[in-house]
């Protein structure tokens, strides 16, 4: 393979590079002839691409979260004028009050950005890229070039999405699910004009990025493991990235097909989703389409998507909890099995988002059964994490704390999934704040906690420096308490049937009792948002000024990434790739604190 050859030639340069620069080690040493462009911009090094995904994701997260701050201000203080909003948004916030159109645009963009750009690209894009070659023992991805394209398609998608924020009629505003006919007809909503075309274009580019990345992750894991690294010896992080990539590769194309049909309906006069419409004073000619067809296509990705978001977090938390408890992950095979079960079931439950669309109740019954079945592998995972920390010797690094926080929020949000997955309860709670509370806790907060755990834990590998611990602790505690304060009370709003995506509740006799609660939630949102900025500051400050790493293995972990040099070059290991002899979880075995995967099994070692 030509690819291998390229990498091996790199390897020699790397060896020299590392030796020459180790003493004043600052930055990332690759080949001498690397220009700025090929090193930092069009890089084919998976570690650099991971950083590109991460930093792009962080920028998107700030934008997406800032949008939520703005619409939370509206929800809490509908009668107060905020002049700064007019400064930022112009006629979308005349007199300091955002318009309903602006509110819906913000809500839509918040969802799109967080779900796709931050928690898909920013999370699995970052850590799949960083950890797959390092933990399976490969010099790079199967195709570094495709990997680079994957990032740049994401970048293009980002550019198009940013552009859509500045068009005169505003960005898409029909919700992140973009249900037609609302999203198909410019006359039905101002956001469904050019903003929607840009949204669809951006998402199409994003799907391309995901497929290029996903195929790469799968082929790297299957084909490029180092000697001795059988599939049962790879860390759970890799298993989770593997299933994530499989989910993405199988479901994103379906989303793309749904979007293409939507584009046809918008511009080519077709009627895939449109039927019998009377909009803006005139009857349209479309007949015979089904708006529900789109929902099927959308949720066939949409549901696996939530596992695409949460599986990498699960994998990383498994790793972080084991390392910091100084204990093997409990039930490795059960953990892999439950990931597998979740991945399979992920494809069989999409219609639980559609219980109240007029779905055949008999068909709905199967989706209830399959949906609640997912709770079984999820429960196995939770109990295994609990048993992993049981009788451990836990070090509360910021990463470990976020790992514990992840388990806590995953339990809280997962249990409300049992409510919503049961169709009879869903009739009442569907599209209310209960749903908002549920998925924000289980795939928003939890996934972010998994991501934070990953960032704090692997930061030394990425930047050869540590992040500031104290800021990490402050970040964790305010975020954990804040997240519960924000989302827990929303369950009650949902129980009252309070609908999502309302601009103002003050005219509703049934929902106006929550005015004070909404104020409380929004104030906590402001505090938590400021705390995230503190994290961002810590992240960027530590790249340049953080405490330097002085050892290759700062957490005393067993996995292969910690056998690379402090400043790994392109190709990761200066010499040969180490051989693997054991699984990744020999912590506290036979009186040893930890036994790296590269250590051969000695004959007198106890079996497990």
């Amino acid at each position, binding site marked *: 393979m030509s690819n291998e050859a390229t990498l091996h030639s790199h390897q020699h340069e790397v060896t020299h590079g590392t030796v020459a620069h180790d003493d004043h080690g600052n930055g990332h040493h690759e080949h001498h002839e690397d220009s700025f462009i090929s090193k930092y911009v069009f890089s084919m090094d998976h570690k650099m691409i991971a950083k590109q995904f991460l930093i792009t994701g962080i920028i998107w997260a700030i934008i997406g979260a800032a949008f939520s701050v703005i619409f939370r201000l509206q929800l809490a203080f509908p009668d107060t004028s905020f002049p700064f909003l007019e400064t930022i948004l112009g006629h979308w916030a005349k007199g300091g009050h955002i318009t309903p159109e602006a509110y819906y645009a913000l809500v839509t963009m918040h969802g799109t950005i967080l779900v796709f750009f931050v928690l898909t690209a920013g999370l699995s894009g970052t850590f799949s890229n960083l950890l797959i070659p390092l933990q399976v023992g490969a010099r790079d991805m199967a195709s570094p070039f495709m990997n680079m394209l994957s990032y740049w398609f994401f970048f293009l998608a980002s550019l198009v999405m940013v552009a859509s924020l500045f068009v005169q009629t505003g960005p898409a505003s029909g919700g992140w699910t973009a249900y037609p006919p609302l999203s198909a007809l410019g006359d039905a909503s101002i956001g469904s004009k050019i903003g929607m075309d840009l949204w669809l274009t951006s998402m199409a580019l994003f799907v391309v990025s995901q497929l290029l990345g996903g195929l790469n992750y799968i082929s790297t894991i299957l084909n490029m493991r180092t000697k001795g690294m059988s599939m049962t010896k790879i860390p759970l992080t890799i298993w989770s990235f593997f299933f994530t990539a499989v989910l993405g590769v199988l479901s994103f194309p379906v989303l793309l097909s749904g979007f293409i049909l939507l584009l046809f309906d918008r511009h080519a006069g077709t009627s895939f989703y449109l039927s019998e419409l009377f909009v803006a004073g005139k009857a349209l000619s479309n007949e015979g389409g089904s708006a529900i067809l789109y929902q099927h296509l959308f949720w066939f990705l949409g549901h696996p998507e939530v596992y695409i978001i949460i599986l990498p977090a699960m994998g990383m938390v498994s790793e972080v909890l084991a390392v910091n408890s*100084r204990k093997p992950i*409990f039930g490795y095979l059960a953990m892999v099995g439950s990931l597998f079960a979740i991945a399979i079931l992920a494809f069989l439950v999409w219609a639980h988002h559609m219980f109240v669309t*007029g779905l055949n109740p008999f068909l709905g019954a199967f989706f209830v059964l399959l949906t609640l079945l997912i709770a079984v592998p999820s429960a196995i995972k939770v109990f295994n994490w609990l048993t992993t920390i049981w009788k451990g010797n836990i070090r509360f690094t910021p990463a470990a704390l976020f790992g*514990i926080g992840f388990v806590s929020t995953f339990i809280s949000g997962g249990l409300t999934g049992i409510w919503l997955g049961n169709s009879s309860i869903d009739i009442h709670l569907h599209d209310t704040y209960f749903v908002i509370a549920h998925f924000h806790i289980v795939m928003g907060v939890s996934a972010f906690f998994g991501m934070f755990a990953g960032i704090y834990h692997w930061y030394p590998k990425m930047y050869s420096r540590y992040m500031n611990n104290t800021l990490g602790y402050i970040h964790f505690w305010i975020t954990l308490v804040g997240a519960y304060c924000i989302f827990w009370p929303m369950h009650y709003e949902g129980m009252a049937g309070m609908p999502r995506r309302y601009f103002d509740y003050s005219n509703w006799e049934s929902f106006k009792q929550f005015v004070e609660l909404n104020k409380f939630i929004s104030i906590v949102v402001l505090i938590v948002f400021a705390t995230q900025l503190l994290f961002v500051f810590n992240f960027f400050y530590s790249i340049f000024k953080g405490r330097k790493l002085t050892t290759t293995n700062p957490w005393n972990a067993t996995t292969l990434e910690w056998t690379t040099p402090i400043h790994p070059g392109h190709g990761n290991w200066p010499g040969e790739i180490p051989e693997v002899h054991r699984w990744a979880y020999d912590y*506290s075995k036979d009186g040893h604190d930890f036994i790296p995967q590269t250590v051969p099994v000695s004959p007198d070692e106890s079996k497990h």
Partner: protein
Amino acid sequence: MSGFLAVLVVVLIFVVIFQIAKASEYVSILKGEKKARQQNNRINGFLLIAFLVLGLIGVYYCNELLKGKILGEAASEQGDSIDNMIMWTLYITGIVFVITQILLFWFAFKYQEREGQKAYYFPHNNKLEVIWTVIPAIALTVLVAIGLRHWFRITSEAPKDAMVVEITGKQFNWLIRYPGKDGQLGSKFYKNINDATNPVGQDWDDQLNKDDFMATEMHLVVGKPVKLIIGSRDVVHDVGLPHFRMKMDAVPGIPTTMWITPKFTTAQMKEKTGNPDFIYEIACDQMCGAGHYSMRANIVVETQEEFDAWVAKQKSQYELAHGAATPAAPQQEAAKDSTQKAVAAIID
């Protein structure tokens, strides 16, 4: 100015926190990595257990504070089923929530790193795995079984004697049509729609349409099942009935249905809730555009006599469209036009 001050304060707080964080890092380097870690561990271990205790108290307090605001007893028989289901699910998930959260934070606190403490090498145990596969599976089977029983009952065919009301969503209000005396809705076609005289597109050649009347408020009879025929003129809407605990999408081109049996009249609810302004509201529950948040209609649940009196005052849409020289919106007519009512009765 105040905005500028607020930003200044936030920045100052940031700077202070950052300086403390930087100083504490230097201190921990001076103290040695191990000692610093032990100290951090003690602090965070304490915080974890404090979070558990305060968190559980907070959950209780939050419930005390908010349980009075979640609309009280369901106002339909179907809603009772759903509330019953919620109760069972709450018990099961509530128990699991409390136990697992206590275990998580208690273990974290108890097994924090200590000098001389060794972690226990415990890679797997099949018996445990089987236990926590089987127990959740059984619990979930029970929930699925109860849930589906309610689900099939709620989504079953409406009883034969159910009253029929059609509700059509449009940006951004609801169009409500009653079948009139014959009890049958006339046919409609979207190309007949005319906002002034024919908002749902009734086919005037269909005899069944002659007595159908439109209303802006939905009137229902207490204790009498009602079947809603739900549709939409433009985008997807959703008929959300929070007090009745029911909900169904309104999809253009594909009619949907749901049926409920109201338990309390509006007057009874005013008494029950102690709120003289109480009103049953229909809320749109599916994002439908800029006016989504204001897409409301009211429901009046009343006795059969009150309902009959109300129906007698209504005027068919056919007549409104054809009778009056200058057709007006149906609601204004329906509300006060009692002189023409007599004429309508004669024509019918």
